[in-house]
């Protein structure tokens, strides 16, 4: 009992814990448990339960198909319009869900933050996992749509995990920034819904980004979700959907910057979370 872990722990002002990443690994079980709790609680005391994760994207998809595909008659890059819309909606819903869960995660767990020690990174990370589960569930709709339209994806579908990873980094990066800022400035409580609402219009969710005039496409990619969604479409639809590489690389660069910056800012501010939350 007495012999193990006799390493000496030093607590000092401004000391960046060298053990942080080791601690993160040691607390991985807490990470599982928090994610498990959030998933378990998410649809408690609802009648149709997890079916909500199917219904919401399904109805949105129908609306977008009718408005953009049937009324506005936008092009669909060679695939049935619903599949084109859904290939964009999957990452978008993942991103928006993760962003709102993540940015609120520290506030909703404030009792934990102020009473127990653990690497704080666990909280927003497990919030993203919950949205990822919704993402996987919604993915089943895509499979159903493909079966319905007899749509066979090309070899590019195999690259999808890479784009999922990019979507993950984008959600996590933005989420970390907002979560850390939200602890100190509750203004971000109002900023997040705005970002999500606004983002839906400026991201190519209901329409392909190929309809954006060529000279603007590079600038358009300043929205990192443009690269993520284009990547998803490229992998899922195949065929005519072409990746506009300069804009994709710009988005990818921004995602990496967002993710790295998010971790850096979170680590910088997390030491004072318990004092200001």
């Amino acid at each position, binding site marked *: 009992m007495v012999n193990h872990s006799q390493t000496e722990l030093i607590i000092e002002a401004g000391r960046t814990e060298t053990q942080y990443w080791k601690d993160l690994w040691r607390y991985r079980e807490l990470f599982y448990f928090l994610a498990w709790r959030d998933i378990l609680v998410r649809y408690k005391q609802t009648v149709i339960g997890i079916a909500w994760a199917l219904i919401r994207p399904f109805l949105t998809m129908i609306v977008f198909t009718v408005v953009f595909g049937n009324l506005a008659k936008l092009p669909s890059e060679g695939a049935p319009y619903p599949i084109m819309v859904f290939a964009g909606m999957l990452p978008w819903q993942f991103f928006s869900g993760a962003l709102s869960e993540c940015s609120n995660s520290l506030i909703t*767990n404030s009792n*934990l933050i102020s*009473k127990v*020690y653990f690497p704080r990174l666990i909280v927003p990370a497990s919030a993203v996992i919950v949205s990822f589960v919704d993402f996987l569930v919604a993915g089943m709709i895509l499979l159903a749509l493909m079966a319905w339209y007899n749509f066979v994806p090309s070899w590019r579908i195999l690259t999808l995990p890479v784009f999922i990873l990019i979507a993950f980094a984008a959600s996590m990066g933005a989420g970390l920034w907002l979560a850390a800022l939200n602890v100190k400035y509750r203004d971000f409580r109002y900023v997040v819904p705005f970002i999500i609402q606004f983002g839906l219009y400026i991201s190519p969710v209901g329409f392909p980004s190929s309809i954006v005039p060529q000279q603007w496409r590079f600038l358009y990619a300043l929205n990192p979700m443009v690269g993520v969604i284009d990547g998803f479409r490229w992998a899922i639809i195949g065929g005519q959907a072409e990746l506009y590489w300069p804009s994709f690389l710009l988005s990818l660069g921004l995602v990496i910057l967002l993710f790295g910056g998010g971790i850096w800012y979170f680590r910088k501010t997390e030491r004072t979370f318990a*004092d200001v939350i």
Partner: protein
Amino acid sequence: MSETVIRVENLSKKYIIGHQKQERYTALRDVLAEGAKSIGRKLLKPGKRVSDPGGEEFWALKEVSFEIKQGDRVGIIGRNGAGKSTLLKILSRITEPTSGRISIKGRVASLLEVGTGFHPELTGRENIYLNGAILGMSKAEIKKKFDEIVAFAEVEKFLDTPVKRYSSGMYVRLAFAVAAHLEPEILVVDEVLAVGDAQFQNKCLGKMGEVAREGRTVLFVSHNLSAVQSLCQTGIYLDSGKINTIGNISTTLAAYQQTVFDNSTGKSETIEVAQGQVKFTKWQLAGSLTQHEHSCYSREECKFVLTLVTRRQITGVNIGFAIWNSDEKLIIAASSLDGGKTYLSLEEGVYEFVFKVRLPLKSDTYHLDVSVNTDEGQLDRWQPATQLLVLPNLQTNLPEIWQGLLNEEVEFELQNVSTPILEGN
């Protein structure tokens, strides 16, 4: 065994407390406004630094240093806001110190609140796993102790009910049960015993005593002084962020009680005695070892001095004297007639009556009850607001439930009735 496990050197923690600001959190607009203001100031008066007028520094801890050895049971006491909880928070790495250094050897588990992270929607079973993980237990560890935890909490029947439907007692029992089965080398506990009924509190104290007996280091913050006294052998008395007293628990507790008492005597009454009236105006203890006129040590010979003012002549006088404990139980009563003494006759003037008594009482506050009775009936009965404080001076290892009203010294001796016959010699 007596290796130093926690060494704290010059630990300080500063908080900035905002004055006029109402919000609990900073709003972005304030930061922007302050930023703009300070730029403006720099432009107008370059080279001059202006501090933030809205904030004031508050040192929750100031230059605190101490050492804790392996297996010590340390009680941290002090008034609200003395920095006890801040100290525990820094020790358990929840918040970081402003300056100073702490080195800790061994795994620390902190229990600053019962039921941290319990989710009302989850069942008892699920919450045991969740709470265990939050407190730092591994899944395997929780699984191993699961039955023990459930038995301790006495919630077998409700394991699959969401805890939001639990009674508050069941909730607290379950929460403490999880925490009680932690096995860290250093256990940090803050005021958790303030919840639950008396029986459960005793169970918790017993469990904590058990943990301590296993040779683990325990840091315990509580306002329940007798719990601290029964559980800990060392005490740290914090007063406005600084260490006032450190050392043996009895010494520390006595020092603490003394200051608490000094602060509460400000409200002693001044009594006006009008023409024709008879009234008690003052009471005090003379010659107590505590050097304090309203407190004494348990089992010490006490001289209670009662001052009576009479503004007329009275005859057939007897003085009554009684002491009640904080549960309104009569401890002792006496009268000036006891032992066959005669009635007194008093001229107009000021008198002092002395009751000499040895009080073998447990450490607590008591209140006096005095009266002056004559042929005409009771002329005055006075229950002074200033209470009597009895301080402990007896070392005991008994837990709180085994502390009786009396704190009398009991002699113990071992007598050998027969010596065993040593065989084979």
